[in-house]
C-alpha cells in the first residue's frame, strides 16, 4: 500500500489542466530575446550583453574582419561562377521569404508588431523599400557565426544594386549588424570602415547563404504510432530545407516540418540543405489504436497495443479527470474498456507510455484514445 502522500503525488503528477491560450501571447510580449529581430535581441537579453563584455570592441572588429574576408572569399568564388549564382539567387530569396513567413506564423503576431515598431526595423525599411516583402532579415546586415556559419544577405547595398534599386546609404542610419554565436546576439552599428569595404565592391554580389555543418534535430527519435515528429535544422531564419520522413509521403520544404508516423517500422528521415543531405533514424516500436468500440459487435471491441518485442512498456490510460483507468504491461496488452467491472464511458482518454529497453528508460509518450459505444 502506498503512503498517503504518494497517492497525492501520483494524482498530481498527471494533473495538467488546460491553460488559457491568451497566456502565451502575454508571456511572449514580455520576453526579452526574439531572434530575427536585431533591435530586441540586441537591446535586451543578458546573454547578448555578456558577449559584448567578453569580446569587447576588438572582438567584434575581429569577427567583422573574419566575416568580411569570408564574404570576399565567397564573392571571388561567385565571380567565377557568376551566372549560376545569379540564376539561383532570386529563387533563394523568394523561398526564404516563404520560410520567414512560416516562422513568423509559428511565432506570434505580437512579435511581428514589435518588430515593425522597432526603430532599427523601420530605418532599414527606409533603406530598402523591398524589405516589406522580404521580411526584416533580408534588410539587415546579419551575420551569424556559430559552428555553422550562416551569412545571409550580408551585402545589402550590393544586393539592392542587383535588384536595380538605388541605395541612399550615406543619408540613412547604418543598419544593425547581428553577430550570433551560440546563445548570444549583439547589435552594433556597422563601422564606417567595413561599410566602406562593402561599398567598394565593384561586382554585384548575390545574397549568400553559406552553411557549415547543418544538423537535423528531431523532436523524438522513437515511440509508438501515431507518432508525430517535428524536424528542424540548427539553421535559423531563411532556411530552405527539404525534409523527407521516409514513410512514403511527399517531402516538405521549409525551416521545419511535421510528420505523423502511422505504422510501426524503422524510418530514415533525411533533410537536404543547400545540397548537403543529413539523416536521422526514427523507430516506431508499435502502435496504439486511436479509437476502439467495446460494444460487443465484434469489431474493434478491444484496444490492442501492438509492439516490438525489443521494448518493454507500461501504458497507463486516464480519463479526462485524470483518473487512472487501466495499466497495461507485458507483451500482450489489451483493454476491454471496462473499469472495475463496469463499462467505461464513451469519450476521449489520455495515455502515457513509459518505455524501457534493457532496463533503461528510453522514452515517454502521451496520446489520446477515443472510446466509442
Amino acid at each position, binding site marked *: *500500500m502506498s503512503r*498517503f*502522500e504518494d*497517492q*497525492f*503525488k501520483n*494524482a*498530481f503528477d*498527471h*494533473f*495538467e*489542466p*488546460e*491553460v*488559457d491560450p491568451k*497566456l*502565451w501571447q502575454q*508571456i*511572449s510580449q*514580455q*520576453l*526579452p*530575446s*526574439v*531572434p530575427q529581430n536585431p533591435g530586441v535581441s540586441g537591446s535586451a*537579453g*543578458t*546573454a547578448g550583453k555578456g558577449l559584448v563584455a567578453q569580446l569587447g570592441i576588438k572582438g567584434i572588429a575581429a569577427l567583422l574582419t573574419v566575416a568580411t574576408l569570408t564574404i570576399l572569399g565567397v564573392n571571388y568564388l561567385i565571380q567565377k561562377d557568376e551566372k549560376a549564382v545569379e540564376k539561383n539567387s532570386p529563387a533563394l530569396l523568394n523561398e526564404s521569404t516563404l520560410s520567414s513567413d512560416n*516562422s513568423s506564423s*509559428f*511565432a506570434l503576431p505580437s*512579435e511581428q508588431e514589435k518588430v515593425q515598431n522597432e526603430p532599427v526595423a523601420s530605418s532599414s525599411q527606409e533603406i530598402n523599400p523591398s524589405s516589406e516583402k522580404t521580411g526584416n532579415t533580408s534588410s539587415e546586415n546579419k551575420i551569424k557565426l*556559430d559552428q555553422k556559419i550562416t551569412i545571409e544577405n550580408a551585402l545589402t547595398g550590393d544586393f539592392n544594386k542587383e535588384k536595380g534599386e538605388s541605395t541612399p546609404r550615406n543619408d540613412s542610419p547604418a543598419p544593425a549588424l547581428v553577430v*550570433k554565436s*551560440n*546563445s*548570444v*546576439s549583439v547589435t552594433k552599428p556597422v563601422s564606417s570602415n567595413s561599410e566602406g569595404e562593402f561599398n567598394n565592391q565593384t561586382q554585384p554580389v548575390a545574397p549568400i547563404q553559406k552553411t557549415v555543418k547543418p544538423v537535423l*534535430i528531431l*523532436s*523524438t527519435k522513437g*515511440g509508438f504510432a501515431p507518432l*508525430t515528429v*517535428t524536424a*528542424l535544422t*540548427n539553421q*535559423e531564419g531563411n532556411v530552405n530545407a527539404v525534409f523527407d520522413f521516409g514513410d512514403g509521403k511527399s517531402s516538405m520544404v521549409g525551416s*521545419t516540418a511535421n510528420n505523423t508516423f502511422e505504422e510501426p517500422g524503422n524510418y530514415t528521415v533525411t533533410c537536404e540543405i543547400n545540397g548537403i543531405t543529413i539523416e536521422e533514424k526514427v523507430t516506431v516500436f508499435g502502435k496504439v489504436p486511436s479509437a476502439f468500440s467495446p460494444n460487443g459487435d465484434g469489431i474493434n471491441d478491444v484496444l490492442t497495443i501492438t509492439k516490438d518485442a525489443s521494448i518493454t512498456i507500461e501504458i497507463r490510460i486516464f*480519463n479526462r*479527470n*485524470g*483518473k*487512472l483507468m487501466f495499466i497495461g504491461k507485458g507483451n500482450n496488452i489489451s483493454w476491454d474498456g471496462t*473499469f*472495475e467491472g463496469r463499462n467505461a464511458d464513451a469519450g*476521449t482518454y*489520455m495515455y502515457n507510455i513509459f518505455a524501457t529497453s534493457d532496463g533503461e528508460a528510453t522514452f515517454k509518450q*502521451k*496520446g*489520446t484514445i477515443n472510446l466509442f459505444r
Partner: protein
Amino acid sequence: MSLQRPLEMTDEQIHEAILREDASAQRLLYDKFARKMFGVCLRYIKQREEAEDLLQEGFIKVFQKISSYKAEGSLEGWIRRVMVNTALDHIRQQKMLWTDLSDIIEEGDEPVIGHEIGAAELMAELQKLPIGYKTVFNLYAIEGYTHKEIGILLGISEGTSKSQYSRARNQLMILVQELNKENSYTTK
C-alpha cells in the same frame, strides 16, 4: 482543445534551441510544460486568475534565467522550482497563520484514496486547507523539499514546518475519508 502534444523534443534539445535564441523553442518549451506547471500553480494559489498570473510570471523568469540552468537536474525540475519560488513570493505577501507544536495530533489509519477520485477532486480537498498547511504540504509531500528547506523558504522554524505538515496531513486524511464515504454512497 487538443490533449495531444505532438512536439516532444527532448529537454536538452529545447534548452539548446533556447540558448541559440530560437524563438520557436521558447514556444516549444512553453507548450511542453505550461499545463503541468499550471497544475503546480493551482496547488499553491486557489484563484484561477491569480494562478494564471503566476504561471505567466514564472515562465518569464524561466526564459530570463534559462542561461543559468546547468543541465544537471531535469529541466522540468528546474522549471518547477522557478514556479514554486514564484508562488512562494506571492504567498509571502499574504499572512500565514502558524500554530505551535503544543497541539498533539493523533495518527489515524492512512486512508486509501479511491481509484475513482481524480486529481481535480484531490485538488479541491487540498484547497480547503488553510494556506499555511497547504503550502507546507505542497512543498514537503509533492515537491519533496525537506522541513529544513521549507523553514528557510517560508521564514519559519523547522519545527513549525513539521507541525504544520502533520496537521495538514491529518486534516487531509479526514477530508479524503469523507470523500471516500461520499463516493461509496453515490456509487451504490
